[in-house]
Structure formats: C-alpha cells, structure tokens
C-alpha cells in the first residue's frame, strides 16, 4: 500500500496544506495541482515579459520549506507547477532546495507548433463550437497538450525526488505513483481507471474532505484545521480515501460523492490520456472514521487523440458596482441600470454584451432565487465586454456619476472606476496522440 496526498487544488490554494500533510502523519507521495484552464495563458504572458518566469512561483519556496522533511521521510513530490516553463521552475527548485533530484517532463508545450499542425491538415476545431482554429490563429497566447501519467511515472522510475510537469492532467499526478510502484501497464484499463478516479477525488484538495460540503456543514470538525485528502492505494486498483487523524474536516461517502460529481460530464466516459474511466462502476463503502473504501472500478482503452488546451485574446471587459440602500433599494438599482444603458447607447458605444445583476436579489441564482421584495440594500453589478478597449474604458466612467445624478441613496463607490481587463478565452481541440512526444530530463 502507498499513501498519496494532494496538497493543492489550484494555484492559490491554502499554503499551509502541503506542510501539514507532510508534518501531521505518514505519506509517501505529495501531489500538487497548480493549473486551471486559464492559468497557462497568465503564465505565458509572464514568460514573454521575463524568460525566467512562466511557472507556479509558489512552488520553489514551498519545496525549500519542505525539503528537510521530504528527505527525512523519503517523500516524493509530483506537481504540474512547470506551467509553460518547467525548466526554469526546476532551476528555481534546485536553488531553493539544493541536492534534491529533480526531473522535468517536456513535450506538452505546442505553442510553437500550431502552424506545423495546420500545415498537416489538422483543423483543431473547438470542441464546443466546431469552429476551425484558423479563426483565432493570430490571437493565440498559449497551446498545450494534456499529457497523462506515464511520462510522470517514467520520471519516478528514473529516481526523481521532485517531478515537474507542465500541462499534465490533474488526475495523472495521482495515477503516476501507482503506475510507478505497482508496475501497471499502459493497457491495464481497469486499474488505470481506478487510479484516475482516485485522482479525480483528491484533485480539488479539501473539496472531498469536508470543504464546500453541503451535508451538515455546521458540524464538520475544526474546519480551520481541515485535512487535505490522502489515497491509500493498493496494487489491485482498490483504494481508501482518508486524511490525517489529527487534522480537521470529514471524509465519508457523502463528501466523496459530492467530489465525484464535481465537473463531471458523461459518467460512462471520463476521458483522459491514460484511459476512459466509468464512474457508474464505482462502489463506495464507509470503512471507519474518516475512511471511504473504493472498489469495483472499470475502465476502457485510452482515446487515439489528446486534448489541446489553447488560450487566446478575445477583447476587453470591465465590471463595476454601486450599492443602493432601503427604501426601494431594488427599484433604485433597476433605475440606475436603465440610466447607464441609456447613456451608453447615446454615446454610440458598441459591446458584445452588457450584463446586470442585483446582489441580494438574484445575482447567484437568477430566476431560481427566492423572492426578496424589499431588501435593506442592493448592490448593482454591471459588466460590459467587447472588442473595442476604448468603449469598455468609457463605460468605467458611467457608474460613479450616478451617486450625484441618479436615484437617491447610492454608496459603495470607494474603489473608484473599475479596471479594464483583457479577456483571455479558452479553446479546446483534439490532436492525434502520435504528434505529442514527451521526454524526461533528470537534473541531479
């Protein structure tokens, strides 16, 4: 049995979580998931400004802080902290923690290969809209192929203490140590599916161990000290989800079910580079305090394609707010909305969308929100987006004047004009997997 723990569900997650996982009990592998769809484009921009950046900058100091304990206990780390510059990330890790053996997985970054793919006849159509990528070619900011667990396992085979990947799938980080330790083959579909589902359960950190849990949330023990999840994996593909005993939080079939359904599509076909996992085969059993046993998982052959994660520039947006107080708070906020829209129209400004929400009334749930006819205060939140930056910038000047020239009782303008932000949109497409060749570089 091996213990695999996840200490980061995204870049920006709780900094103490990985430290506590290492200090509060036994683990063999620490995995850290840093990348969301949009993160790659942010990192690409940072790399364009400075060729030594473009990776998750939280990661090297964390490894520096953990290094003595990692050495003492033989804990190995697997992270997709490399972003668009895993080599620079590895250099920073070695500076922070000299003496560790670091491996870098290359091959996911295809930013420089888009034209080559186009010349080979791959249209790279968007998986949602079906449009060919040629429609956004000049605006592409980053392009990466999702890679699976086998290159990461190869890095562990080669003796790495710290494995740094770019755009690996979140689930591959957890599956890789199982492939490495148990010698699973590339066609062990059921076991690969089991390791993939273990990865899905822990990839969002505490979201399976009591965080964001609806059932009896008030009774979840010591949420301030919440324990991040640990998988106790067996060679046959069965596993147990748990947490350190000393930590707060809760692990039971309810918390695990909620996370299993998070960001799920067709449960029969959970597609990864390693296999296709069947979520309808999962059997869960409560097996002691904060322990859930997971068995029965089936999987099928991996697809012939890999998914590309591409980001591109898609115009500008700005979102501003004002607060109106009782009485008639909602009526005043609605009047303010009409006035802003009228003034934008009279200026002749064109936007792709103007969208208004009323906090305290319907912002989260729209028409599904319960009626709240006379709230004590309402925040109006108006956003615009469009291709013309000047138009979006002009919009940001239209809110604050309402305090003096609109309906009575407006406040909450202390932050001043809202910032104009560039929209980095996301494009996903498929490419034959033979086009993506990965390699592992070990830096001692």
């Amino acid at each position, binding site marked *: 049995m091996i213990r695999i723990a996840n200490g980061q569900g995204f870049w920006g997650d709780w900094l103490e979580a990985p430290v506590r996982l290492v200090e509060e009990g036994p683990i063999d592998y620490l995995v850290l998931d840093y990348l969301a769809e949009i993160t790659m484009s942010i990192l690409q921009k940072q790399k364009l400004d400075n060729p030594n950046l473009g990776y998750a900058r939280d990661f090297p100091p964390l490894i520096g802080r953990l290094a003595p304990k990692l050495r003492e206990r033989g804990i190995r780390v697997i992270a997709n902290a490399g972003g668009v510059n895993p080599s620079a990330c590895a250099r920073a890790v070695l500076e922070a923690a000299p003496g560790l053996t670091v491996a870098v997985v290359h091959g996911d970054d295809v930013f420089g290969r888009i034209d080559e793919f186009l010349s080979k006849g791959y249209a790279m159509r968007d998986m949602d809209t079906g449009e060919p990528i040629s429609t956004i070619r000049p605006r592409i900011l980053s392009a990466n192929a999702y890679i699976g667990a086998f290159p990461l396992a190869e890095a562990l085979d080669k003796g790495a203490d710290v494995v740094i990947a770019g755009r690996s799938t979140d689930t591959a980080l957890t599956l890789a140590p199982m492939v490495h330790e148990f010698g699973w083959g590339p066609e062990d579909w059921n076991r690969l599916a089991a390791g993939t589902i273990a990865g899905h359960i822990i990839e969002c950190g505490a979201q399976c161990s009591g965080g964001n849990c*609806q059932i009896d949330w008030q009774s979840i023990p010591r949420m301030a000290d919440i324990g991040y999840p640990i998988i106790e994996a067996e060679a046959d593909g069965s596993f147990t989800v748990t947490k350190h005993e000393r930590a707060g939080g809760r692990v039971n079939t309810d918390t695990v079910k909620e996370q299993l359904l998070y*960001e799920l599509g067709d449960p029969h076909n959970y597609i990864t580079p390693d296999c296709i996992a069947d979520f309808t085969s999962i059997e869960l059993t409560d097996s002691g305090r904060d322990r859930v046993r997971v068995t029965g998982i089936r999987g099928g052959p991996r697809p012939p394609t890999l998914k590309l994660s591409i980001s591109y520039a898609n115009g500008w947006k700005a979102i501003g707010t004002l607060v109106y107080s009782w009485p008639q708070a909602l009526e005043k906020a609605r009047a303010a909305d009409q006035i802003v829209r009228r003034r934008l129209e009279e200026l002749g400004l064109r936007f792709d969308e103007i969208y208004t929400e009323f906090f305290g009334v319907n912002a989260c749930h729209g028409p599904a929100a319960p009626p709240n006819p006379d709230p004590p205060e309402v925040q109006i939140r108006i956003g615009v987006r469009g291709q013309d930056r000047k138009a979006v910038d002009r919009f940001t000047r239209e809110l604050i004047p309402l305090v003096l020239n609109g309906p009575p009782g407006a406040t909450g303008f202390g932050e001043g004009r809202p910032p104009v932000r560039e929209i980095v949109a996301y494009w996903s497409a498929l490419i034959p997997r033979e086009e993506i060749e990965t390699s592992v570089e070990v830096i001692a």
Partner: protein
Amino acid sequence: MKKPLGAIAHTRSGDKGDTCNVGVIALQPEFYPIILREVTPERVKAHFGELVKGKVERFELPNLGAINLLLHESLGGGGTVSLRIDAQGKTYGAALLGMEVNVD
C-alpha cells in the same frame, strides 16, 4: 406532498466552459427513485429560466444514488468571458435545492 429538493438530496456543481454540471445525490437510497421521477431535464430547465439558454442533459449513476445534469449555455460564455458573478456555476447546485418536488 411537495417539498424542496433539498429535503431529499444534496448537490455539487461546477463548470466545463459554458456548461454547468450539477450533481444531485439522494440523502437516503429510498429517495433516488423520487429524484429520477421528479428531477427531469424539462423541470430543471424551467427552474433556472433564462439562466440556461441551451438544453439540459441528464445522466444516471445508480451506484452513487445520483444523477448528473449538464446545463448547456448557462454561464454567460463561461470562464473568463462571462460577466456573471458565478461564472463557474459554483452555486447552481444550491439553486436547485429550492426546486419543489413531489415526495409521495
């Protein structure tokens, strides 16, 4: 008898682009057939009204006593494009807890 869905189920929601997924999980095994009967794509689409522009798909996971709903074109373009406060549909699961179901 009519009750809110929250009396018999818990939910979790998330995003994939402009699609929001809502997992609905029975609080007790005997509630699962009620969920299958009551939480239909048509009723879910009606509950969210103008928030869901596309179709609603439903998948069944009897092993978890759960269904998975896909709410297409429901996040204002999704991710970074969306102007909504809940661009990732994090609270859509909670919104469904208020839908009335017949629990008889």
